[in-house]
């Protein structure tokens, strides 16, 4: 809105927005701050926000106690693997729906989304048993397969909404120019859709990174990602707030940093391509 706003009103809005923003962010900030305290300090009353002895001992303790890097690596492989696999399956599907719409395209899309509504518990037992029998339990491959299928509908939907913004005439032009379907998708569609694909990728990496039903139920130790690493802190053992905070910070930091650096794509992605 191009209009002059009085500085006083702007100041008012600014104060309100910052207070609310900081309040929403506070639990994260508090976790990070606590992770640098000693255990004693972490439960001291009244709590101190800034003026305490900063220490990194919790981080070393957490590292000793569990193999952070293995969990981290599992998370990376699982979230990135499932997203990339999902994209490879979803790009051709979304091309079909966006550029060769048939009578039932909308229904197919809705049906795909509805499979997302299939509650995981409803199918947990058979998947668990199948995985147990074929040896996929507690493997990264198993989780990649499950998470790909879980997120596929959302990936297809997001790509579909992004593809629909690309004028069909450009793809037709490439067809006139002699491009085969493969050329059309590789040389024309995909490069044009890079921003949308990036947003989709980011969002789904985050969803997969944070997925905490299948990752908790299908892993034990070997393939456990960070969600499981953190869940092992759920039963208290003595003084553990500072260590919990350190572990939490380590679990969420990769995604927070990723989010910080790719804010624009992410904001686009967070809207699932559904709102312009």
């Amino acid at each position: 809105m191009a209009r002059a706003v009085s500085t006083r009103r702007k100041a008012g809005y600014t104060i309100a927005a910052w207070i609310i923003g900081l309040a929403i962010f506070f639990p994260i900030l508090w976790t990070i701050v606590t992770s640098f305290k000693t255990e004693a300090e972490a439960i001291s009353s009244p709590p101190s926000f800034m003026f305490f002895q900063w220490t990194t001992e919790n981080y070393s303790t957490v590292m000793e106690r569990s193999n952070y890097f293995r969990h981290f690596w599992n998370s990376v492989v699982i979230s990135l693997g499932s997203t990339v696999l999902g994209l490879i399956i979803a790009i051709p599907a979304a091309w079909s729906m966006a550029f060769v719409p048939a009578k039932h395209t909308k229904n197919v899309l809705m049906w795909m989304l509805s499979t997302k509504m299939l509650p995981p518990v409803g199918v947990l037992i058979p998947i668990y048993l199948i995985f147990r029998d074929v040896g996929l339990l507690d493997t990264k491959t198993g989780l990649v397969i499950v998470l790909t299928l879980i997120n596929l509908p959302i990936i297809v939907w997001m790509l579909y909404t992004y593809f629909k913004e690309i004028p069909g005439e450009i793809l037709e032009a490439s067809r006139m120019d002699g491009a085969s379907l493969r050329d059309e998708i590789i040389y024309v569609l995909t490069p044009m859709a890079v921003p949308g694909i990036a947003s989709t990728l980011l969002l789904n990496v985050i969803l997969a990174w944070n997925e905490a039903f299948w990752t908790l139920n299908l892993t034990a130790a070997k393939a456990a990602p960070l969600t499981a690493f953190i869940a092992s802190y759920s039963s208290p053992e003595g003084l553990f707030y500072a260590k919990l905070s350190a572990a939490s910070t380590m679990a969420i930091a990769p995604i927070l940093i990723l989010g910080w650096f790719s804010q624009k794509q992410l904001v686009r992605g967070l809207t699932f391509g559904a709102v312009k």
Partner: protein
Amino acid sequence: MATQHSRSAARIMISPAVLLLLAWMIVPLALTIYFSLLRYNLLMPGTERFVGFLNYRLFYENPAFWTAMLNTLLLVGGVLIVTVVGGILLAILLDQPIWGQGIVRILVIAPFFVMPTVSALVWKNMFMNPVSGLFAEFSKAVGLQPFDFLTHAPLASIIGIVSWQWLPFATLILLTAIQSLDSEQMEAAEMDGASPLSRFWYITLPHLSRAITVVILIQTIFLLSVFAEILVTTNGGPGVASTNLTYLVYARSLLNFDVGGGSAGGVVAIILANIVAIFLMRMIGKNLDA
């Protein structure tokens, strides 16, 4: 733009996605239904036998089931109300001229990046703990009795935690939608003498309807299967006060190893999800085309 060529290509290209999802839907679904008709306990291998609808009857007669059903709906509904209303208000605020808007936006989105297990643990221990949580400290500071959130209001606490995780999402979508509102339309309404409240009611809100639909659709998908937050904070308790269907089935099948009973619960969860889905799809099918 469709020729026979491109139509058959389209059919081939969409089939991997469709077939995979179809398999993903049908195979486990069929197995779940099959298991739900068996007496099947992992602790007693070899004793499986067909028992018809017994598992369903046991599930149905179990008072925990109805509580879980109600809790599931309360959880979904509660979080939706908090996030949609909060999201609209927050989006309107963030749409105003603000110094440091970009930073505020990052602060507001941040909870979305936090994995459910972490946020549940942090809220449980560092905020809601009745002895040393921040809320307790705050109560003590103003001279009140600390409140034990997770014991006395477990479901409401979980609704609070989950809302905190999903508020960013709702806010962001609604903010994007508000920013796409044609400012001339607003100015025209202002010229016509519409008060801020009626401008909101007659222009902003209808404009947001599509975005609200998207928020409800996507959040419902995720909220129906909230699990980690319950597992980490209350384990469904006290009693079954914060058990939802997902957690109930988990407890039955993986904690009690009762595959038959758990599967019956799974089927019920699927039916519930389908009822909700039908409502949603009705609503969205209409709203998404616009």
